[in-house]
């Protein structure tokens, strides 16, 4: 399936792997795919979301810190460094390649369906974004978009206007 990804869609997926590594997350999830899309600052996908990478990273970090606070742990996870910076020494070490979560795998399969529904065999970042918008409740990308106040319906309509 990865062969059908356009160069920019591939770049978004490898940026997602990088985002997971940067945060020290053991797997690449839908939230990382969303951050990966935002690496290309001027793509139709990024413009339709209307949020920059730095803000999205901050939102994800604050979700973590709030969750820690909710269980009574008062610590800033990222006190060790500015995690919104592009270059950060990886805080955690993992072995070998970083696998995708089940949810991220499902999102990549939905990306294919989104492209097929538009009669194109080339998977673009916009198809990935449409797939991420359909994550449903409990999906990390959906939670992150909610935190950012991004309305999925509005993003879909901006995407179809751009098309």
């Amino acid at each position, binding site marked *: 399936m990865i062969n059908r990804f356009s160069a920019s869609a591939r770049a978004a997926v490898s940026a997602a792997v990088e985002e997971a590594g940067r*945060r*020290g*997350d053991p797997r690449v999830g839908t939230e990382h795919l969303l951050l990966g899309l935002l690496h290309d600052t001027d793509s139709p996908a990024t413009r339709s979301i209307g949020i920059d990478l730095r803000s999205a990273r901050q939102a994800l970090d604050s*979700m*973590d*810190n*709030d*969750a*820690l606070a*909710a*269980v*009574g*742990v008062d*610590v800033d*996870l990222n006190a*060790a460094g500015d995690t919104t910076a592009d270059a950060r020494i990886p*805080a*955690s*070490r993992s*072995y070998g390649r970083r696998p995708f979560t089940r949810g991220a795998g499902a999102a990549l399969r939905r990306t294919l369906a989104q492209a097929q529904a538009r009669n194109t065999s080339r998977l673009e970042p916009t198809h990935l974004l449409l797939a991420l918008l359909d994550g449903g409740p*409990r999906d990390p990308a959906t*939670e992150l978009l909610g935190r950012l106040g991004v309305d999925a319906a509005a993003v879909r309509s901006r995407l179809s206007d751009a098309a």
Partner: protein
Amino acid sequence: MDLQQLSAGIGADDPSVGLRAVGALRRLADQVEVAQVAAARRDGWSWEQIGDALGVSRQAVHKKHGRFER
């Protein structure tokens, strides 16, 4: 706060918040481990001593951290 209060807090209203906290705590533990293992090595601790302190084998610690030594 004792362990019971902690897990009650986790289960209180939203498991998605509680589960996110667990993931964040693991990452936090990992970050602290990386820094502390490096500090111990600089101080001349052996992999065996570090493994004993962490409750894991010497091999496990070395496999995870050894390749990052210069």
